[in-house]
């Protein structure tokens, strides 16, 4: 399996709002800690090591 870079979320605006709203009352440290937990949960759900490696490389490259 390859990292899916095509649109894959059914309701993108709703998802994005949910993500942002979930951190609305958190300070920066709390939000970063939540992000860490979220990344670990999603990574485990994906499971496929090759996909995870591609995602890490892709995220790192996008940030410069």
């Amino acid at each position, binding site marked *: 399996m390859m990292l899916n870079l095509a649109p894959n979320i059914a309701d993108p605006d709703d998802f994005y709002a949910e993500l942002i709203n979930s951190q609305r009352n958190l300070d920066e440290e709390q939000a970063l800690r939540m992000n*860490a937990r979220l990344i*670990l949960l999603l990574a*485990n759900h994906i499971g496929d090591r090759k996909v995870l490696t591609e995602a890490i490389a892709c995220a790192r490259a996008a940030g410069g």
Partner: protein
Amino acid sequence: MTNYIYPKFSYLRSKEQADGIVKRHPIVVIGAGPIGLTAALDFAARGQPVVVLDDNDTVSIGSRAVCYAKRPLEIWDRLDCAAPMVDRGVSWKVGKVFFRDQLSYQFDLLPEANHQWPAMINLQQYHLEEILVAKCRANPLIDLRWKHRLISLKQPGDHATLAVETPDGIFTMEAQWVIACDGANSDTRKMVGAEFTGQLFQDRFLIADVAMKADFPTERWFWFDPPFHPGQSVLLHRQADNIWRIDFQLGWGADADAEKQPERVIPRILAMLGDAAQFALEWVSIYQFACRRIDNFRQGRVLFAGDAAHQVSPFGARGANTGVQDIDNLAWKLAMVLRGEAPEALLDSYHEERAYAADDNILNSTRATDFITPKTKVSRYFRDAVLELAQQHAFARPLVNSGRLSVPTPYATSALNTPDEDLATGEMRPGTNAADAPTVAGKPSWFLRCLGDGFTVVTFGNAIDKTEIAIGPLAARIVRVGRDIEDPSGLLAARYGASPGTTYLFRPDQYVAARWSGFDEAKIIEAMLRATAQDSAQHPAGQKELAA
């Protein structure tokens, strides 16, 4: 209130120093720590006389290494000293990891029953060394020389020349081979000019060995960020004689001299155990560590083992445990080379296999260190996230890393292995250390005991009559399951994925050299030659035998 009385081993002037004669010894071991003493016992077990030089005259000061794993115990059993270690030490297999004041994760190192030796014992290094010294002293092939300090080493051609300082002055001795077991700060390594490179870690740690009566279970307890030592990690381990090892992470800026003082140490322990705790400090030390290894384990006639060859973080108990396995790998090879049964090239496989294992240990120990001591704010958030999630969810528990405890590294890529040729089943691939199992040889015993310390062929369900296969000076004993040993529980066959015909060749260090689905003498001979770094095509005896 330490109750331990350090033995004092008497210095004796050697005959060669008294006579002023330069004597050449087959093997000289530098350093009488756990690795040097194990080396002496293993060489002697293989019939080689060995001289051990140590600049001190007692055992390890302080308990230092504490945890000894199953594989070293199996090696020490081959050398007939595991039983007193297990009797003297405390056996354990359960580890608990706490985050703040909650249990995050618990592991069992030996979930499988029916093994002779425990997953791990804890024993003060001084007790362990005393057992090894007593065993060495009882062996006429071992010459332990205390207060002998190596001051220079040269390698003129086919031997090494050693200048050794004793209370009677300096004298010269020669060695065909030198085994350097003189620790992380090895002078021998400096004398041969070997590189010793890797990563230095900034965190400082405080070790306190305390004597106390406590009712904690015999388990390894590791805390991340506990309320009694916020922001840092703490490790608690039981040793023999009601001595407990407590290891506090202190961080980067800690002042080693100040932190060692009892007035700084005692409040830390009271915070952990409660103000009413009754204890006495036995030994306190501050350490910092590096993960690094020597460029080549063989430097001409000098072979490096233990911390002299590689240094790891203490998380995972990979220091002494790895060093003992270095010796297990080296002793049979050097003994065969000295007897002329194998070419010197076999010694290069010592570097190949043990550097591979050292790199694996360094990798594991570096990963544990990075988990325990995150280097950035965000990596700390990830670490804490793993620990928080592990309290609720099984998926995060395998990510918790408080030290992956020492297990043998299979020599997966070793040139001594004969690769599987048919669809072999089971995990016991060539290059793997033999799994133990209960077997019966007249009376109930263990499989590893029946393997012994030479080449051994173990075959299942083949009606062969032979008891040995020989080629030139090499010989392998044949153990037929059903004839020489019984496997009433079926565990041996299960652990080796055996079906009728399955045949294994084990090396003298009890590693799998080759395995087949049937018994074929020519293939066994070829594998035995390969496992001793000999090319069967160039081996006259091999050629004849194979042609026949």
